[in-house]
């Protein structure tokens, strides 16, 4: 059975149809990225799956549980999931270790607190007050609180917004490490490189509908799309689209009788594909 199973999910706010019929199937152990511009229905979809919002229509099963239910069963369910929200700036007067230890007490099978602190790379900050952490360190703490209950499923909402490139790489390594433990992860992100680096599959959502679901390499026919070969010919740069870039390069190699000036061979980036798919509406 899939960890996440969604059929025909719909949600409107007044006249605004935020989610207009979303289907998702995510098996255990997969890292799944949900991509989409602001207002595409990403957050609404995820918050329904997290049990934070009610839906108007559709079926939702998360670890076999319908998140619209409340009470004891909901507690048992929350015991098995972890949620890292977009921003939380509370508890500034507590230390990192106090906070993680406290949150670990909510769960029946928490991870070892020191291990969690090490996993997110906050060893040197474990005794520091949260108010004194940098933005990136805070985000690491958010993740620590999301994983301390040893969740089977982890929701990550735009986890690296505001990170510098180095912190982002370190964060990716952390998520890849979680993959090793078999945790299923639903990731929402603005960053295409992030989805490409982490996700097994990506879904692109726009105007409340899923446009496509595939692997990052195959999204939008990317794997089969024409390669672009470009080089300098005298005063100007020439570009040629081709399905056989190797033969083009071989031809040029013969033509120039050696090194081809300023040679590049590219395929459309995930970002190019994505922007085409959402019709250039992203900010």
């Amino acid at each position: 059975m899939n960890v996440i199973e969604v059929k025909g999910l719909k949600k409107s706010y007044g006249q605004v149809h935020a989610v207009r019929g979303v289907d998702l199937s995510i098996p255990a152990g997969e890292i799944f990225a949900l991509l989409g511009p602001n207002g595409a229905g990403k957050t609404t979809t995820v918050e329904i799956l997290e049990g934070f919002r009610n839906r108007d229509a559709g079926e939702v099963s998360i670890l076999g549980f319908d998140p619209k239910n409340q009470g004891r069963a909901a507690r048992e369910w929350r015991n098995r999931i972890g949620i890292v929200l977009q921003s939380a700036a509370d508890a500034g007067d507590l230390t990192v270790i106090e906070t993680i230890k406290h949150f670990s007490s909510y769960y029946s099978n928490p991870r070892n607190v020191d291990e969690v602190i090490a996993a997110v790379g906050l060893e040197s900050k474990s005794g520091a007050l949260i108010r004194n952490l940098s933005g990136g360190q805070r985000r690491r703490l958010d993740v620590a609180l999301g994983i301390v209950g040893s969740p089977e499923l982890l929701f990550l909402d735009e986890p690296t917004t505001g990170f510098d490139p180095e912190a982002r790489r370190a964060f990716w390594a952390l998520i890849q490490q979680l993959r090793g433990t078999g945790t299923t992860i639903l990731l929402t992100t603005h960053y295409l490189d992030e989805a490409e680096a982490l996700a097994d599959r990506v879904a692109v959502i726009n105007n409340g509908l899923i446009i496509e679901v595939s692997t990052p390499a195959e999204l939008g026919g990317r794997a089969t799309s024409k390669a672009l070969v470009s080089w300098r010919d005298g005063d100007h740069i020439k570009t040629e689209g081709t399905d056989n870039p190797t033969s083009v390069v071989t031809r040029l190699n013969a033509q120039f009788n050696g090194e081809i000036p300023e040679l590049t061979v590219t395929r459309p980036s995930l970002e190019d594909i994505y922007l085409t798919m959402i019709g250039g509406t992203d900010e």
Partner: protein
Amino acid sequence: MNKIPSALNLGIRRGKLEIIQFARQRESVVFTLLFPVILLAIFGSVFKDTIAPGVTFSQYFVAGMIASGLVNTGFQALAITIPMERDVGGLKRLRGTPMPASSYFIGKAILIAVSMIIQIALLFGFGLLFFGVEMPSEPSKWLVFIWLVLLGSACSTALGIAFSIVPKSGRGASAVVSPIVIILQFFSGVFFVFTQLPTWMQQLAAIFPLKWLTQGMRSVFLPESFASQEVAKSWETGRTFLILLAWLLIGVFFSIRKFRWDRD
């Protein structure tokens, strides 16, 4: 698979955490805990008269200060700080964990009860040392005092949590909540002798719990003979208990049914 911890167990843990957080905000600790003492010092120095034979204004005022301390520390503090916690996303994060709402409420109740005990101890200490406040000698009055503090503290906590749904943002919360508390204090006989207030004010105040808490505290700190000077010519102890209990139930009901974890 281990069992998930009980709501009470987590509530006690939350209480400890709330106390640690409160204690680390030094300015607000000093202000919250000493505020009643400061007021007692001001009013005790200004009004030197006696209200009735053997009843100084300080004595009358201590009763009012403990009662309004319960409202300030519980209702006012929670109705302001909970919207602030909500604004910064702290409540939503808690909502996403297996911690039940009741544990969060129990944690708040523990914080309020502990801070009330410290406040009362300070008020007694300063009152005895500097303002000639007399403590009741009969055990029965202490018994009334203890249930008044416990029930009043619980009632104030529950109503503060319930009222936290009203302010839209943490920044605006103080402007919504503080005037209500101050007006209630004037109407309920905290700063003035209750029987000297206009009748309509007395009647309005009688709807809300602060009037009953204040009157209950007077029954503890003022001589038995003073009862005849109350509006009802009696302390109305039984009625006080029932009205506070009713407000506690109203607060608990709205806290459970309407509590908001998220900004929108």
